[in-house]
């Protein structure tokens, strides 16, 4: 027994110490989570959602340095409630899903901006990778948490809706991201 403790304890400690610096991993509950976006067309805003996406979330408000979000979005799953628009979005003029089926966001750093936590990361969309910063609101709840993420990106930075669709007086330049995730501890 003592030898067991003697051999196991250092192993446990060795395993636990790097663990102290690592944020907790969470699993996304898809049924109660949503990845949404909104923009405007001819002065009227519209809301859309992505039906298929995955997110690897490691987060601890006290260990921002080791926190990480890694999100993959299936762009063909975008729905905005209008058949013309939903028909156009996957096409070559917008997401071009035939060539770029997925968008990918991965954080590079988290920082505290006053009371707000900001996730800096790189978004790869439509073959373009650019830095994007998102506001993060993480609320622990029991063994899990809720995570709300908001931010704004410029569609033309990523060449989404180029050519004649680049007219921002018709299709708004900004796309707001809003995600609500329900997380359970892994």
């Amino acid at each position: 027994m003592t030898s067991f403790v003697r051999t196991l304890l250092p192993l446990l400690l060795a395993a636990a110490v790097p663990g102290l610096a690592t944020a907790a991993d969470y699993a996304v509950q898809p049924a109660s989570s949503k990845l949404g976006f909104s923009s405007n067309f001819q002065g009227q805003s519209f809301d859309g959602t992505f039906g298929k996406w995955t997110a690897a979330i490691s987060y601890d408000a006290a260990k921002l340095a080791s926190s990480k979000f890694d999100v993959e979005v299936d762009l063909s799953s975008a729905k905005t409630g209008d058949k013309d628009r939903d028909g156009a979005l996957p096409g070559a003029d917008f997401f071009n899903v035939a060539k770029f089926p997925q968008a990918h966001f991965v954080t590079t750093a988290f920082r505290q901006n006053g009371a707000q936590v900001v996730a800096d990361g790189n978004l790869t969309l439509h073959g373009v990778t650019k830095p994007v910063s998102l506001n993060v609101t993480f609320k622990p709840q029991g063994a899990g948490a809720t995570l709300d993420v908001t931010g704004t990106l410029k569609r033309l930075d990523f060449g989404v809706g180029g050519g004649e669709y680049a007219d921002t007086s018709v299709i708004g330049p900004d796309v707001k991201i809003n995600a609500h995730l329900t997380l359970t501890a892994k």
Partner: protein
Amino acid sequence: MSLRSNDRQWGSVAKFFHWLMALAILGNGIFGLCMDFAHSPMQKIGWFAWHKSIGLTVLALFLLRLLWRAVDRRPRDEPGPRWQHVSAHLVHGVLYLLILALPLSGWWFNSLRGFPLQWFKLFNLPALASKNDELAHTVIGIHEYLFYFLLLVLVAHAGAALKHHVFDNDNVLRRMLPFGKLRANHSQGDKP
């Protein structure tokens, strides 16, 4: 030429409403029928935006015209048989109804399709109804046929005005022409 109408001819405000709206309605109607010739979806979106903005302008002009008509005087009917007076006023009434129904049916269709409604990229107007693609299909047909009906009524309206101008040599058209000068007051058989 005064702003207000008098007993014998229309004032410049009434003429302005009449001719500007005639031009806008005819132009926008013909333009509307051509919008399917757009080369690209974005061009079509732009053309529809123009069509909608002009249509809303017609609707606004119509409301202003009604207000003006309520306070303005009106020229007396030119001498003529009673059936001509009655049918002329009937045609005017039908034209007024069509001028109102055309933009409203367009607005209704636009609402049923869930499209935004913007006036020359300046401001948006609310939907008149909630989204209903099936009904929209019917209403766009109504919108289009209202214009064909307007063209028919217009043949009677403009045809009668020209008939009075060319064959009767009276002031029916002259009193509405932008820079028209009235013929001297004369009765039939009393030629100068």
